[in-house]
């Protein structure tokens, strides 16, 4: 009986030691799998967690339908190519006789299948496509931080953009027949803020979002 008790203590101590070694070995890998800014390593996990929520919104149809790789916007929750051969045009507002605002008004139509709307309805211009379609989460993240790809914004300005921009806000009031992003606008802005304040860390994994239409 006494021998068994002593053996148990030895086994417990051995398990604790092995566990500590394993934990020590794993912890640095969290940091090395991400592109860090100047944040302390302890913030990396929080930053990555926040960005995973941000990504779930950016890749929802309400955002991705206009943040496309090519020149044709998508429409609906299925993200089908926009009817009528609609094209981006140089300034993102369409082509002659097919400007976005020819159909999209300053407010949503109340009719099902009719155009949604906000003032100055548009997609990103040809010179700054901000196309996330087909990018990995890490690629989207790095493009958001790159002023050459994000409309010349600092990360602090990204927070203002997602908080105040009328078309971003439209995502949570998209009119009849369109799904909402997976979290509230308030939660989204909060997670973008958290991501920025924890160093705007980007994952390096190659999970592809959306289709490469």
């Amino acid at each position: 009986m006494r021998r068994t008790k002593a053996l148990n203590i030895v086994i417990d101590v051995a398990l604790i030691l092995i566990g500590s070694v394993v934990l020590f070995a794993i912890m640095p890998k969290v940091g090395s799998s991400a592109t860090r800014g100047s944040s302390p390593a302890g913030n990396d996990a929080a930053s990555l967690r926040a960005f995973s929520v941000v990504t779930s919104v950016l890749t929802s149809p309400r955002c991705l339908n206009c943040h496309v790789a090519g020149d044709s916007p998508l429409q609906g929750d299925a993200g089908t190519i926009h009817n009528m051969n609609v094209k981006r045009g140089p300034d993102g507002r369409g082509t002659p006789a097919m400007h976005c605002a020819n159909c999209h008004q300053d407010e949503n139509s109340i009719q099902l299948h009719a155009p949604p709307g906000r003032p100055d309805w548009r997609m990103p211009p040809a010179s700054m496509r901000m196309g996330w379609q087909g990018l990995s989460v890490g690629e989207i993240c790095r493009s958001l931080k790159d002023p050459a790809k994000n409309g010349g914004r600092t990360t602090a300005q990204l927070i203002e953009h997602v908080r105040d921009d009328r078309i971003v806000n439209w995502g949570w009031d998209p009119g009849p027949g369109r799904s909402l992003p997976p979290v509230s606008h308030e939660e989204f802005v909060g997670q973008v803020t958290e991501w920025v304040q924890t160093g705007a860390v980007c994952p390096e994994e190659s999970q592809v979002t959306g289709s490469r239409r």
Partner: protein
Amino acid sequence: METKLTVNGAQKVVDADPRTPLLWVLRDHLDLTGTKYGCGIGQCGACTVILDGNAVRSCQVLLSRAAGKRITTIEGLSSDRSHPVQQAWLMEQVPQCGYCQSGQIMAAAVLLSSNRDPSDSEIDDAMSGNICRCGTYHRIRRAVHRAAELARKEARKS
């Protein structure tokens, strides 16, 4: 509520709810029935009119957006059917049933106001929002080329 509009060059005052679609104002209040009701949800282009130079879908444009703006309907494109697009449409015998054609003509006129010599693909891009159930697309494209040619000839004369 009264709203002032400029329709085909004439000042108009309309007494209607500001949320009335422009198409209803044109057809029911101003008796300009050349502009057609097609789908009512901005999908077909039959109701296209020109609002400050843009080929808008009048079934989607609220009267409040049109207030104080210049609106041109098919009736006002020319006083005598002499607009190059109207001439070309006759020359190429474009319409079949004709229901979509006023919208098609207005879209073509807007295209040519910004592009004097559009290519096939530029015509397709500009005209894809106007659906023709008779399938007159090949004649529409030919007529837009012809209208562009007529407009260039007129410009050279003047």
